[in-house]
């Protein structure tokens, strides 16, 4: 059994709802679709039992019907496990993973700024990566965002 299959089997044995939701795309690339409600259970297991000590980034997606976030994680830096969680469009929010990965702070702030996905449990702090005067409710990576009238809304713009 390849190490990729071992990870797949391990996850499927532990969480039966993952059956059929794990794809080995190629050597060292695994994609997992995780239900929103069980995301932290899977994450917790992967970190504590599968020793996933490395988070290489979080990709936020706008899939029109819903938002999604992909957590690019790795046990030893070799095989990358991409955990994908769908997030509802009506009330977009997701729990912070900063208690596992302090490095997630910047990635989660990016989710908030660029896609407007509220990250629960993210400590108060300065925004990233948009500038301080950026108007509220403007999230550039949303597919329906066209930036209309943005110049008028920017802080310091002439009324």
């Amino acid at each position, binding site marked *: 059994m390849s190490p990729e299959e071992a990870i797949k089997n391990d996850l499927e044995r532990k969480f039966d709802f993952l059956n059929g939701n794990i794809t080995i795309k190629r050597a060292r690339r695994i*994609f997992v679709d995780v239900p929103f409600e069980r995301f932290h259970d899977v994450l917790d297991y992967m970190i504590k039992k599968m020793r996933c000590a*490395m988070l290489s980034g979080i*990709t936020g997606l706008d899939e029109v019907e819903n938002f999604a976030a992909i957590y690019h994680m790795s046990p030893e*830096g070799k095989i990358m496990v991409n955990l994908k969680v769908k997030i509802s469009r009506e009330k977009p929010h997701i729990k912070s993973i900063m208690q596992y990965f*302090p490095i997630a702070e910047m990635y989660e702030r990016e989710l908030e700024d660029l896609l407007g996905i509220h990250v629960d449990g993210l400590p108060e702090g300065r925004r990233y*990566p948009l*500038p301080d005067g950026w108007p509220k409710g403007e999230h550039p*990576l949303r597919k329906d965002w066209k930036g209309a009238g943005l110049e008028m809304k920017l802080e310091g713009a002439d009324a």
Partner: protein
Amino acid sequence: MHNTGDVKVPIGPQHPALKEPESFLLTLRGEKITAASVKIGYNHRGIEKACEGRTYIQDLYLIERICGICSHSHSTAFAQAVEEIAGIEIPARAKYIRTIVAELERVHSHLLWLGVAGHEIGFDTLLMYTWRDREVVMDILAQLTGNRVNYGMNTIGGVRRDIKAEQIPQVLKGVDTLEERTKYYIKIAGEEPTLINRLSKVGMLSYEDAIRMGAVGPTARASGVQRDVRKDDPYAAYADIDFKVITHNTCDVYGRTIVRVLELMESFQIIRQLLAKLPEGPISVRAPRKIPVGEAVSRYEAPRGEDLHYVRANGTDKPDRVKVRAPTLANVQAVALMLEDRYLADMPIVVAAIDPCFSCTDRLVSINYVDHNSKNTFEWEKIHRDSIEWYKKRGIDFAKLNKTF
């Protein structure tokens, strides 16, 4: 009575000690930093959003301009992701050429860093030496690719320029020169007490913290973390090449210096192996304009560490989503930790030691200027010779200077 309370000092986003816009809020007790926080994002140019409105080929050039120093890193990582989605296997020769440019880029980047590090500790002679030597690798890059920065070497499906047999001896000669110079820098790093004392125990990042904070590249490897995408997740031609992952266990700025100078030596022998084994054959395959539905995660060991690209295609000629996580974003979060309990005067070198990626404004020299009326072509060599002559007429002879080394 003296005020014994803490003083908050904002540094940046525009500050003489910083080479790029970023801001630090340092809490000082006397000269000691008791708390530090970092704010970045001043260079955000909306490239990810811009990519969604452009074709894959346009994106390749846009992405190459994320950074002037590691431009090839970004364009290769992006091209790899797109090729994976499209199911394109690029020719072996293209993989080798990509890897050769990648290692030459690492050499120029590490030499540049060594100079900046020297400058930050008041050792400007090191800056002058390394940046003069760096011209050797910049010349090689210019000869192979046509540009000093933003090489434009990649295309979806391979590379755009071949390496000609007659270019190889020149590259090898340059690599030999650089290796000799690097041996001298290794000697300096090992023996020069001002350098050793200034850098040791500065900007400490323990092995545990490097893992916890997700540090990458030389920053992580200097804390003993055996992580290198070239070995862990081989791409391009790295699986065919024999090389060592350099680590160090001092966990300080000195360690980061040693890792980078030793990595230079590894890069030289990687380049030699690649040139010796360079396979024959085509340099690119035809890629479709429209990329089928799919997604891919591409990883690349840039000079500063792991560069991650995520691309999602929707069947059109434009991507649905492009996500870039450059290595500095992974490392900058460890900087606050490195600064705590250190002296204010250490701040510039500690920040420089992660080698933050500047949006490099390196000058772009046009190599081939064709005057259509007179049919004159100015080759790179000629421009180079002319500039030396220009200075010679004014009493400055570079040729003589170079001979002493």
